[in-house]
């Protein structure tokens, strides 16, 4: 394993997010908002990417996304918490905790059964939220602006910088994890699980660890989304369509690199905003058509657009 700073991806992530955080100060507020929403989704997609490396696709990751968002909202409702750090920590801990518990069950499942069981768990949470008045039912809750160590910044640019920092940190953690022995094991599990088992490696445990990491990432994503948006509600945070969107972005972004989910998330957000503005009654059509186009013409996602010219460039340099 190469050292951290020697890893080209780590360097790229650090430079990219620093530039983004700085650029944020010069961008109009609506772009800052969309970028933040995109980064939040990207973080959840990063969680799906980790799972995908193991060959697992969750059709219920809105469970953790929603749980993270609702943790932020409920922390404020019950304890008046509006500080960034406890909000984010709450979201990660709650999502990770449930992920750890459900992981004992889910680690035994593969393929379509894994997808369906994830879906069932997420829809059970949806069913509770939608029908419980004290949890906000269909309305959800408002989330007041986030405070940073007692300071409430006038603009959202500072918040974007914080979000960028969190995303950069998460991307590096995932990069290190995937490069570790445990991480390589997950890829081996995808390729042939039974062989890995016969070699004496703990398949179930490595899947469980991956799953918890993935849940924590989605929880953080939901928490950031709630803070960036100022609102949580079941239909746009926990319903199955949200899970579907996340899987869609994963495929659109491509699983080739830890930076891809964030690019995918931001692109998705802008496609949606413009599609909605151009054709308010046909934005889903545009999103759906994009999805089909990606599957047919760009099966390795947007990342392959970046990767190919990059590799060519390197070859020439060599």
């Amino acid at each position, binding site marked *: 394993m190469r050292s951290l700073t020697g890893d080209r991806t780590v360097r790229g992530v650090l430079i990219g997010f620093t530039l983004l955080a700085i650029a944020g100060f010069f961008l109009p507020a609506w772009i800052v908002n969309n970028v933040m929403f995109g980064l939040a989704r990207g973080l959840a997609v990063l969680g799906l990417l980790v799972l995908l490396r193991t060959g697992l696709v969750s059709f219920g990751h809105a469970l953790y996304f929603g749980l993270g968002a609702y943790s932020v909202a409920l922390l404020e409702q019950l304890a008046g918490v509006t500080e960034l750090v406890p909000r984010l920590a709450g979201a990660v801990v709650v999502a990770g905790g449930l992920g750890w518990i459900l992981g004992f069950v889910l680690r035994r499942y593969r393929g379509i059964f894994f997808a*369906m*069981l994830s879906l069932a*768990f997420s829809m059970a949470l*949806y069913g509770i939220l939608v*029908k419980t008045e004290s949890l906000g039912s269909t309305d959800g809750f408002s989330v007041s602006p986030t405070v940073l160590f007692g300071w409430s910044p006038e603009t959202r640019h500072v918040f974007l910088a914080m979000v960028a920092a969190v995303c950069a940190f998460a991307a590096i953690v995932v990069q290190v994890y995937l490069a570790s022995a445990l991480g390589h094991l997950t890829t081996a599990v995808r390729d042939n699980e039974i062989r890995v088992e016969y070699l004496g490696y703990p398949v179930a445990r490595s899947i469980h660890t991956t799953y918890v990491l993935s849940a924590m990432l989605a929880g953080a994503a939901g928490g950031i989304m709630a803070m960036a948006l100022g609102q949580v509600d079941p239909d746009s945070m926990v319903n199955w369509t949200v899970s579907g969107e996340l899987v869609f972005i994963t495929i659109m972004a491509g699983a080739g690199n830890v930076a891809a989910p964030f690019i995918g998330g931001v692109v998705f957000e802008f496609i949606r905003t413009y599609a909605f503005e151009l054709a308010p009654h*046909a934005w*889903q059509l545009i999103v759906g058509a994009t999805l089909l186009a990606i599957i047919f013409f760009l099966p390795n996602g947007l990342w392959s657009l970046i990767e190919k010219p990059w590799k060519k460039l390197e070859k020439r340099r060599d």
Partner: protein
Amino acid sequence: MQTIVAVLIDGLSYSSYLFIVSVGLTIIFGVMKILNVAHGSFYAWGAYAAAYFIGLFHGMGFPHWFGFVLIAVSAVAVGAIIGLAIERIILRKMYEHEEVHILLATFGVFLILEDVILLVFGVNPYFAYQPMALLGSVKIAGVTRDVYSLTLIGLAIVIALACWLCLARSKWGKILKVVIFDREIGLAMGINVNAVYVYTFVAGAMLGALGGAAIAPTLSVSPGIGIDVIVLSFAVVVIGGMGSIAGAIIGALMVGLLRATAVHFVPELELFVIFAVMAAVLMVRPEGLFAPARARRI
């Protein structure tokens, strides 16, 4: 006692509707191994087509009973046109793709068809209550019921019998069984697997559309009706065992009766119970209550 009868009847009529919608999904999965999210679109399109034409023809002075003809015609037309289009244009090119990609492609199709509904039928809800009004009501155990919803139970039984006959008693059924068991063996035996896929997908689409068309008179047909249906039918199919028709019956009965019980006694749990049971079944018997055991391939 009155309440128990009410729960049973409410549950049964809801189960019948769930079964009609889900059976197409389970057939498509059983034969083609595709979990078709666009099934929600078949349902929505069936409902819209039926509601639209019932309103149109009723406005032109056609008698109320003509609505039943329109329901059948809508289901067949929607299933044939949209089902064929999806199979030919999208799925045909995807059979070699990964499961996830196919699933996502059907999700994309679902999103597209949701908006095409808006573009074709507009944004306002449709009410096609004429067939329901025609059949009137009947009093059972102290509660007045509309006869229409009760006839759905009959329709579900007819469909279940037809599916069983087709699978267990016809040449078609044998061909299907071969393809279900192994696509390659089917090919080797000279079965036109592509044709089997087309027929299966269109038949499944028609059943999904029939579910929508048949339920249309009892609800307000409005944008987004396919969204809830698709997860409910996933629950039904998973509980019973994906690909099993007997499973779809059991799954529909369980979901329908559970929901009715919850609405009568603890309305807050109405949605939760359905997915809790779905999760529980997956945990205890992942292949569903009615699917045969499969060998683990190395």
